[in-house]
């Protein structure tokens, strides 16, 4: 390797992020090249200065105390409700009234679960329209998972299931059950599978529904709720569900 090939590797080399083989190449080159050795030494001294000059700030104790107080107040909010000012009582009353109202006028015969399934099927159908399926197109789980970072506040597990016949094709954000959810997109032959993921509110039991020609599986695993939708048959979709959530 010559200097031009070594230079881009030097940072990863001093950061110990280089794989073994290229690292050995750099070692070999540095033994004979004074210029690259000097660059390496200057990078190392810069790193040492940044690490040893006490440049990191520490959280003030008052801030720690304030955060603990606020967290404690948030968790104690419910039992304290009676001592809140009248505005809160009024708001509570209003919310209660609204809840009763919605319950009364809810079309009878449609359970919350069916409504969720219908909503998920609508999202699934919409995703199949041209240009709607994926925000990040990648068959690589290591590309899809980081993509969700910073877009949602939970980390869905993204598995590569190509070997089992369910290749990952990408992911996007969607809206379901009144919140932003992660949608993982997989294929099975010519079928598209949408797996919607969001933090579970309660640990519900697994359900499988068939509606309008689609299969919908709902399952809670490790604090996350999975809602899996496809026009694939129930048996294969169940197999997929087991692989994704195990």
């Amino acid at each position: 390797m010559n200097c031009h090939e070594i230079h881009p590797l030097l940072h990863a080399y001093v950061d110990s992020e280089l794989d073994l083989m290229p690292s050995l190449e750099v070692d070999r080159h540095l033994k004979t090249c004074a210029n690259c050795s000097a660059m390496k030494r200057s990078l190392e001294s810069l790193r040492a200065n940044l690490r040893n000059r006490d440049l990191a700030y520490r959280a003030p104790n008052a801030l720690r105390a304030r955060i603990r107080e606020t967290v404690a107040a948030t968790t104690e909010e419910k039992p304290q409700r009676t001592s809140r000012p009248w505005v809160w009582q009024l708001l509570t009353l209003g919310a209660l009234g609204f809840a009763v109202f919605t319950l009364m006028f809810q079309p009878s015969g449609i359970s919350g679960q069916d409504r969720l399934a219908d909503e998920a099927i609508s999202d699934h159908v919409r995703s199949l329209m041209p240009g709607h399926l994926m925000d990040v197109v990648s068959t690589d789980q290591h590309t899809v998972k980081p993509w969700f970072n910073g877009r949602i506040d939970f980390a869905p597990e993204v598995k590569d299931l190509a070997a089992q016949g369910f290749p990952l094709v990408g992911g996007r954000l969607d809206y379901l059950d009144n919140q932003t959810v992660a949608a993982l997109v997989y294929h099975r032959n010519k079928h598209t599978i949408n797996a919607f993921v969001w933090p579970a509110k309660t640990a519900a039991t697994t359900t499988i529904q068939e509606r309008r020609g689609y299969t919908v599986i709902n399952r809670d695993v490790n604090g996350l709720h999975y809602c899996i939708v496809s026009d694939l048959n129930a048996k294969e979709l169940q197999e997929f569900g087991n692989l994704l959530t195990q």
Partner: protein
Amino acid sequence: MSATDPQRQFEQVVMPHLDAAYNLARWLAGNDHDAEDITQEASLRAFRFLSGFRGGNSRSWLLTIVRNTAYTWLKQNRPQAVVSIADDELLEIEDPEATKSHSSALHNADRDVLRAALEQLPTEFREVLILRELEGLSYKEISEVADAPIGTVMSRLARARKQLQEFLARKGELQ
């Protein structure tokens, strides 16, 4: 579940990394007051989303939330600070002759000069250096926190160090 369970989880998952959270917020915001506000808001967001944390690297998880909170704050209050840099996906190939100016070793640089050197860097360069050198995050962790591919992280790190060396050379800190 008793009411103290989420609190206990918060103590285990979030509080141990509060120094790291504050450090990142402080370097992004540039002053104590705003850094405290950002850290507090990010901690409370972390508390609300604790149920979404499924184990694993709690520090990266918290730092991601801090970074998002800080950027939202910066965009609202200091939009000029978050002008995006055009990232070269590939590291620049440097001309060995041109790099001689900053290929000399740096001995015990003055702390205030180092601080000033970091502060003058563009936000996206500064954050990768803070995460790498002060928090010791791996490239992969930085790529998660900064929401950028590893290639971009490497390129930003290289350019950030180069700018830092040039700044220090101008200040006469390089020997």
